[in-house]
């Protein structure tokens, strides 16, 4: 099935896999505890502290490994929420149409007329700061993008003759959504899944960096950038390490998503580029 995986996608799969392993086996892999003060403030990299220590003298590598767990877990949960919500509502809106579609679509337009981060900040200013709130806010705000994509893909498929043929046969809505539309909408949606995950990682990191995401002493990578940012001016690069990790994870997932997107064949089998 996956006959020719290009090199770039292989690299993406490998690196993403590494991060996943780190996240899953964090307690076994991390040399020190998450909140354990083990050395001096901002010690340089050494054989005892492979990545050095942070602003409170904690082992940076250990915090990076635990941070992978937090970052990936929350981003994954938020992606799952945004995807389930957005895809189901988007497909339904396309198939049901009428006022249901109008109502949802106009509401999504409204939500999207405020940049996501701004709206998240507004909402987070009153909501209690905990994990559930964070995941809900991230997931719901982002589901607008998934909704738009799912709806537009499904609307395109919904007007095709084979769906009309199924309707003329007397098929119910379930068959039309799950057997006719979904199989054809799957590959653009799967590619979008990767992009949404990247967005959630960046979104969570930005929130934590601004001090509104994960609260200390727990750590995600964005929060670790915030903790260590004051060192930069003194030439201490500790903050760059979590920032780089975010970038590498995002790039790896992007490489995978790009590959899936390129494999997506044009539905209409059109005359695109000979």
């Amino acid at each position, binding site marked *: 099935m996956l*006959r*020719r995986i290009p090199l770039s996608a292989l690299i993406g799969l490998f690196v993403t896999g590494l991060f996943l392993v780190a996240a899953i086996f964090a307690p076994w892999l991390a040399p020190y505890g998450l909140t354990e003060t083990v050395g001096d403030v901002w010690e340089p990299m050494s054989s005892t502290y492979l990545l050095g220590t942070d602003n409170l003298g904690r082992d940076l590598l250990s915090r990076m490994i635990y941070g992978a767990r937090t970052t990936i877990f929350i981003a994954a949960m938020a992606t799952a929420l945004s995807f389930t919500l957005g895809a189901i509502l988007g497909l339904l809106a396309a198939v049901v149409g009428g006022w249901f579609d109008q109502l949802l679509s106009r509401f999504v337009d409204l939500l999207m007329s405020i940049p996501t981060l701004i709206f998240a900040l507004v909402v987070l200013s009153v909501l209690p700061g905990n994990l559930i709130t964070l995941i809900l806010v991230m997931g719901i705000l982002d589901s607008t993008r998934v909704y738009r994509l799912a709806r537009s893909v499904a609307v395109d498929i919904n007007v*095709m*003759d*084979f769906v*009309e*043929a199924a*309707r*003329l*046969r*007397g*098929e119910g809505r379930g068959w039309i959504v799950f*057997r*006719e539309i979904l*199989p*054809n909408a799957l590959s653009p949606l799967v590619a979008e899944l990767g992009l949404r995950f990247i967005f959630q990682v960046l979104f969570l990191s930005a929130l934590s960096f601004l001090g509104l995401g994960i609260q200390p002493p727990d750590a995600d990578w964005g929060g670790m950038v915030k903790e260590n940012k004051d060192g930069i001016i003194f030439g201490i690069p500790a903050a760059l390490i979590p920032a780089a990790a975010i970038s590498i994870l995002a790039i790896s997932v992007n490489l995978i998503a790009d590959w899936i997107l390129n*494999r997506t*064949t044009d*539905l*209409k*089998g059109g005359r695109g*580029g*000979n």
Partner: protein
Amino acid sequence: MATDAAFLEVRNLQIGATVYPPDAKPHDIRIVEGVSFDLQKGRVLGLIGESGAGKSTIGLATLAYGRGGVQITGGEIFLHGEDILSAGKKSVRTTRGSKVCYVAQSAAAAFNPAHRLIDQVIEASLENKVASKSVLTQRAITLFESLGLPDPQHIGSRYPHQVSGGQLQRVMTAMALCSQPDLIVFDEPTTALDVTTQIDVLAAIRHAIQKTGVAALYISHDLAVVAQIADEMMVLRHGKVVEHGDSRQIIESPRQEYTQALVNVRAIDHPPSTTDAAPLLKVGNITASYPGSDVAVLRDVSVQIQPGQTLAVVGESGSGKSTLARVITGLLSPSEGVVTFDDRVLSKSLGGRSRDDLRELQMIYQMADVAMNPRQTVATIIGRPLSFYFGLRGKQKRQRIAQLLESIELGPEYADRYPAELSGGQKQRVCIARALAAKPRLIICDEVTSALDPLIADGILKLLLNLQQREQVAYLFVTHDIATVKAIADSIAVMYQGQVVRYGAKAEVLTPPFDDYTDLLLSSVPEMEVGWLDGAIAGRRMESAGH
């Protein structure tokens, strides 16, 4: 006018392209192999062939151009003794702008929506400094006039979207003629037009060619059209020349078997049958408009079909013929009138129809490739109605699928294929099998052959006729093509602007005296004979003089 020396010599032309299939290595394919011909001044050569024959590719090669990834890999094209394929970029530009011009199939897409027509018409000539702007503008106006465009003085100041399709095609011809080139390549210039518009454009193009004495390559899949305009014809198949000769010889005494098949296409003889049986379907006084609009697309339409018979509904774009099909299937609720099937009144909307109503009335679409779910195998596509309507499963279902495949003349191995692995004709056959699987009593065929090459279309029509004999199924055939109507209909309804203007048994409808529209429609269909166009135009002149 014509001199013996050829100004255009094509020698052993080879054209190829690299294709990039998903999940396979890129590889090279050949589109044109070893094509050679000469063309003298003032002569018109028709390039004939089905899709994939390489005719457009050859036409574009005379402008040293390859569409997409197409590359000219070998051979020479001499224009006045100079090989344009080995010429530098600058001289290629001069050739394109002033010596060889191109008229595309869809002028609506080929004109830039952002500029006025006149600026686009004279652009190439101005660029190549053929003459001054005022001279060129005057020349364009003269051309507009000779091509029969309305208001030739001012039509140039319009934008493309403000002009009709048939007019745009003529403006594009004027654009090609404006630099007074040696050669014009016409690439299916009338294919996208309605038949009554086609004849006017065809006449205009031929008039212009004769008046200016320009040479032309006329590319078309329609032999009858080319016969009206070309002095000689070249029949192509899979990128190779099948036969090349004088137009009269090709039409009247084709030498090659393939050419004979092309000439004899649509020679299906189907004696119309009549029956006194009670009508199977009665469409009574239907008036309908699309949701959100109050313009009636159908006005007081009444037709009926007897069991096992074929009613052809014929009309041009906008006549309402496809809307009629939608009303019958229940996809569009009419505002007035009833559809009666086997003496029971069908619900106006799809949701109100019983499963048996739906089963007995099946539909086949124009574009077979979008009428099948690309993610389902042929077995799933044909098998679904079997399990849905009859609850068949397992071995019984497999046997029935094999039977159905046999009835559409495909082997059992096709059951496991996906639509993308089938040819155009095979796809349409599978759609027919899907309709048959429901054991319907009426099948609505919506332009089922118009996306297919003539020979393939012929095969589909023959199959449909055989199946009708065997299964006693009735057809409602929606089409714009008079030849198809003549081939398969028992009765005919001619539609124009939402109304049935003529309706009756085939012989009645096709026998004069005609009403004005039917007369225009029938007299516009090109016949497979050289010189038909002259007669048709002469007939029209007399008529308009008579009015």
